[in-house]
């Protein structure tokens, strides 16, 4: 099957990855090849077969809901791209693009 440039643009937008025109072309071609290949799965009869999501065999693993002080606030703040008065600074989520704290 063949993935169109338009479809690549659509999934790139969903995935939040800006692509150049060249990249769009390359991904359309290579992803089409990969999809052709994975379509060989249709040769396998899976009628009535349960899907496998995990292989541990474990179920309902729980732990006590305890508050633990990980004591790494400073280190976490150090990793943030932008910090203002001890808080993470991000661009505006709603409305115009003025920064908010």
């Amino acid at each position: 099957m063949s993935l169109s440039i338009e479809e690549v643009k659509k999934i790139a937008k969903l995935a939040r990855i800006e692509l150049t025109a060249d990249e769009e072309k390359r991904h359309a071609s290579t992803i089409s090849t990969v999809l052709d290949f994975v379509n060989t799965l249709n040769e396998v009869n899976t009628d009535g077969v349960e899907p496998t999501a995990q292989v541990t065999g474990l179920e309902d693993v729980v732990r006590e809901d305890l508050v633990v002080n990980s004591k790494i606030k400073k280190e976490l703040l150090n990793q943030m791209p932008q910090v203002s008065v001890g808080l993470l600074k991000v661009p505006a989520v709603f409305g115009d693009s003025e920064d908010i704290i």
Partner: protein
Amino acid sequence: MKLNELTIKEAQEGLRNKKFTSVELTKACLDRIKERNVELNAFITVCEETALKEAQNADEMLVEGKIFPLTGIPFAVKDAICTAGVRSTGAAKVLDNYIPPYDATVIKKIREQGGVLLGKNNCDAFGHGASNENSMYGPVKNPINLDKVAGGSSGGSAAAVADNMCIFAIAEDTGGSIRQPASFCGIVGMRPSYGRNSRFGIMPMASSFDTVGPMTKTVEDMAIVMQEIAGKDALDATTVPDLVPTYNDEMKKDLTGLRVGVPQEYFEAEGMDSEVRDVVEKQIKNLEKRGAEIIYLSMPLTKYAIAVYYVLVPSEVSSNFGRLDGIRYGMRADAKDLFDVYSKSRASGFPEEVKRRILIGTYALSSGYYEAYYKKAQQVRTLICRDFDRVFSDVDVLVTPTSPFAAFGLGEKSADPLQLYLADIFVSPAASAGIPAISVPAGETKSGLPIGLQIMGPKLSEGLIMSVANNIKK
């Protein structure tokens, strides 16, 4: 023999008998890294200063009698595994300056007993690749032949162990990332059962496939490291509660009466190198001479494992990689609105292959395609698991080549992603089923390239597959 060439076992003896100190051992490794890393590119970060300090501490522990199996032993860690206070990039620019505030559980276990962290190994970015050419820090070269790839994704770790830049390494195997480079570089590498070792602190790639395992010079060393890192972890709910056996005892068991299965599909793959086949077949004859019973069998779903892998893994990747968005940590692109921050940070922070996998996964999970791709692949995964269950009722282990061919040339497959995906044809089935598999050096090609042999066993049979690996002599 130079100190950096020692195995863990030999280094332990030397340290305990005061033949040398951990500082001397660490210096020998650091010297080797200095001498060779410019050419091999096996390390992204080298921790010279802190390594020497950690070695000094280890020497004090040894004097005080606080001696654990890995006290004073210098090791290296794949860069997709978090190390407290040491830059961990995952070989992608999006985390170029990322310094984790904590150690992955397996690393914590080693560092707490005085293991000496030498540095962080190059790899395919976030583990996406089979040749180490998808690193944003350049490819790793194979120490045995500089024109060849080291394999991937844990190519830097494999090269570092093979070239004696460290005594052992800790890496990660999602679909073959420990075993395939181990076979290309001529060392021992094991993917443990899913859930045997904690994944806490591993940069997640595909959470239902990811495992953490050692890369070592000998099978005996593999048993030593596994003993120290295996077990349940409260921070990883998928770790299994089963007791960790004494691997050093299990590893030494002989082969009398062992039923060794040989699945024909692993010897007939497209592009199969006859030299690889001959070496592995010869080793199977040797196992028979040592008392094993050889049973030839068929596993017809083998060829679908790669297709399953390249639906499910990109799907899990597309979800897991949502966190790498330039907001809370890592590189944030200069952009005014939020959408652009995401899309530009991810555009410049990821290499092409990471983008490709996120896109494939986004497509496979998108409305209208979920049943055709994701669910279908999950169903075939069930059948692959059943195929292993079926054969493991007749045989104890399976023996196959690790890869259809020895290390290929740099650039040889990089233009065609599907060709690279297919390089993992023999290593991805075990990953789908979550069973343990080890690659051990079995011989070499006429041109001197290492050939690896893979042993797979039922869940939690790490000790058993190590005992078979221990009987493979080059």
